[in-house]
């Protein structure tokens, strides 16, 4: 919920691609299930979340307003509301934010069950409801993440250990950082500056610990969580190597944003330069030939795992298997797209033309349709004989 609402605001940023889907996913649910109480789109956020999905959901925009007061995802010109963190608003977040997610899950499951109840003849009429539900459909694998997030947010928000309002909003901020991209970091630094005046340093350290924990459960590379948290300095140690490039890119853009007067920014710059030094310290790329060979080898291995996991691993056999497999799959598609008639009188053969044996073929078609096949009579003698011991040697009279 927090992520998605923040994502609605950062929909246009380049880093926020993966969370675009989240925003659309959430924007659907508030439409259907959110209790009345959300009204009026936010101007600041409606300009930001300009994607098509948000146009159909004013509820999500007002959703984002509630969030924006805590997470300044607006353009650089509006740091005002970022500074103001009303204490009572944080309190109201707990109940209101949990709602859409739980409704979301139940609503989606409700949709699924209602769909399954209809007969299979109605599958074809799924086009219209499926088009409505398609934004919700891909939610299922991510539902767990959503609920985890909301649970985490609830725990943190309702935690009695938070000493001050600033800290709570800072927690919210650190939680919403996963969707933050480079641009809002300038506002973030401003906010840091302000909260630094209010909040003691140990609460920030606590926030860092929380942010460290949020990093661990969230393995998806699409989340920009790393960039924002990296600016806090200590969180950067938990960054994986794979995220160095993305964090570096974002840090360079935040440098361009130019709000380096805050304490945090001062902390960041030595870290940034150190990071860049470490980056350039890596050895220059291997000679291209070797790199190419390794890439080819990796790809052949990937193909082999895909096509024949228990087969040979050399290039020639893998390629051979792949070719055969693709041909087989093409044939499967062709035969599956052939109509299945009731009496199996006419299974259209794409290539086979048997004019002489057409009768025989027709009868064979009937039999196979019923799960039967033709068998010479001689082999039925053993089966028809009395002794049950011979059941397992039907064709081997000589085996006696």
């Amino acid at each position, binding site marked *: 919920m927090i992520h998605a609402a923040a994502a609605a605001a950062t929909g246009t940023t*380049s*880093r926020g*691609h*993966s969370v*675009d*889907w989240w925003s*659309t*996913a959430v924007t659907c649910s508030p439409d259907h299930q959110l209790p009345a109480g959300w009204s009026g789109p936010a101007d600041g956020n409606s300009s930001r979340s300009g*994607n*098509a*999905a948000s146009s159909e959901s004013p509820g999500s925009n007002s959703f984002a307003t509630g969030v924006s007061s805590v997470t300044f995802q607006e353009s650089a010109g509006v740091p005002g509301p970022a500074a103001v963190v009303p204490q009572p608003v944080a309190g109201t977040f707990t109940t209101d934010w949990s709602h859409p997610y739980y409704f979301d899950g139940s609503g989606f499951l409700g949709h699924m069950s209602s769909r399954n109840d209809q007969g*299979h003849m109605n*599958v*074809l*009429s*799924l*086009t219209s409801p*499926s*088009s409505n539900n*398609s*934004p919700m*459909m*891909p939610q*299922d*694998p*991510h539902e767990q993440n959503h609920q985890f997030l909301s649970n985490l947010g609830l725990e943190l928000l309702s935690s009695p250990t938070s000493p001050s309002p600033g800290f709570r909003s800072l927690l919210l901020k650190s939680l919403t950082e996963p969707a933050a991209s480079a641009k809002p970091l300038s506002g973030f630094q401003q906010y840091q500056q302000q909260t630094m005046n209010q909040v003691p340093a140990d609460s920030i350290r606590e926030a860092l610990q929380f942010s460290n924990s949020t990093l661990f459960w969230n393995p998806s*590379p*699409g989340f920009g969580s790393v960039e924002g948290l990296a600016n806090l300095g200590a969180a950067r140690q938990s960054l994986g190597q794979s995220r160095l490039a993305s964090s570096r890119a974002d840090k360079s853009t935040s440098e361009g944003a130019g709000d380096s007067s805050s304490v945090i920014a001062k902390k960041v710059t030595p870290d940034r330069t150190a990071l860049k030094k470490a980056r350039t310290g890596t050895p220059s790329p291997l000679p291209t030939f070797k790199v*190419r*060979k390794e*890439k*080819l080898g990796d*790809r*052949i291995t*990937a*193909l082999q795992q*895909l*096509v024949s996991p228990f087969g040979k691993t050399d*290039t*020639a056999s893998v*390629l*051979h298997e*792949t*070719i055969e*497999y*693709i*041909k087989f*799959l*093409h044939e*499967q*598609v*062709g035969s*599956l*797209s*052939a*109509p*299945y008639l*009731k009496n199996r009188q006419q299974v*259209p053969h*794409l290539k086979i033309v048997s004019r002489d044996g057409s009768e025989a073929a027709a009868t064979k078609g009937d039999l196979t349709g019923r799960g039967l096949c033709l068998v010479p009579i001689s082999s039925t003698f053993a089966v028809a004989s009395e002794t049950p011991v011979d059941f397992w040697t039907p064709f081997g009279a000589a085996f006696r």
Partner: protein
Amino acid sequence: MAVKRTAPSPPTPRPNPNPNRRAPASGADAASPSKRMLAFHFIRALARIHRSTPVPRRTRTIRRAAYSSMARAANPRRVWSRALLQQMRARRATTRRAAVLRRSVSAAPATPPGGGARSIAGEDESTTTLAALARTAAAAAPHRQAGEPARADALRRLVPGGNEMEYSNLLEETADYVRCLRAQVQLMQGLVDLFSAGR
């Protein structure tokens, strides 16, 4: 996403909510499109077919719908999906022009040479474009790399758009194509089972 047309004219596709598609894939390790996306596109195409197409040629149409929906559900950054959709479009264009030509020729054998020439020119244009494509493709890619085995051209023929790719890209595209194909076949098999289980 550009508006791409399968058999009859589709509605404009909305921004795709597919998480796999939205992933900023620089190292493009995207898995095959989720089963739901494949199902969505395929069922939508099927619904359109059953409304508009007569029975005799339905097998071919269904097969084409399967490939088109698979290509549409797949990551548009993939070369094979774009090439496949282009192929479908070109094939539809040629059949349409050929049908028009046949109709015009059969209906009025005494049509003025202008109309006949126009339609013939249209058909020639489409066939020449296809032939030209094939020629350029064949000429441009004899052997991309020295280390490329001989089997690679068979692979290039099988994978759509494989003629212009380099060997390493070809392997990558093949892997993705196989994954998508496999998912599509599983989907179709599941549908068939679903519909034939009600006997």
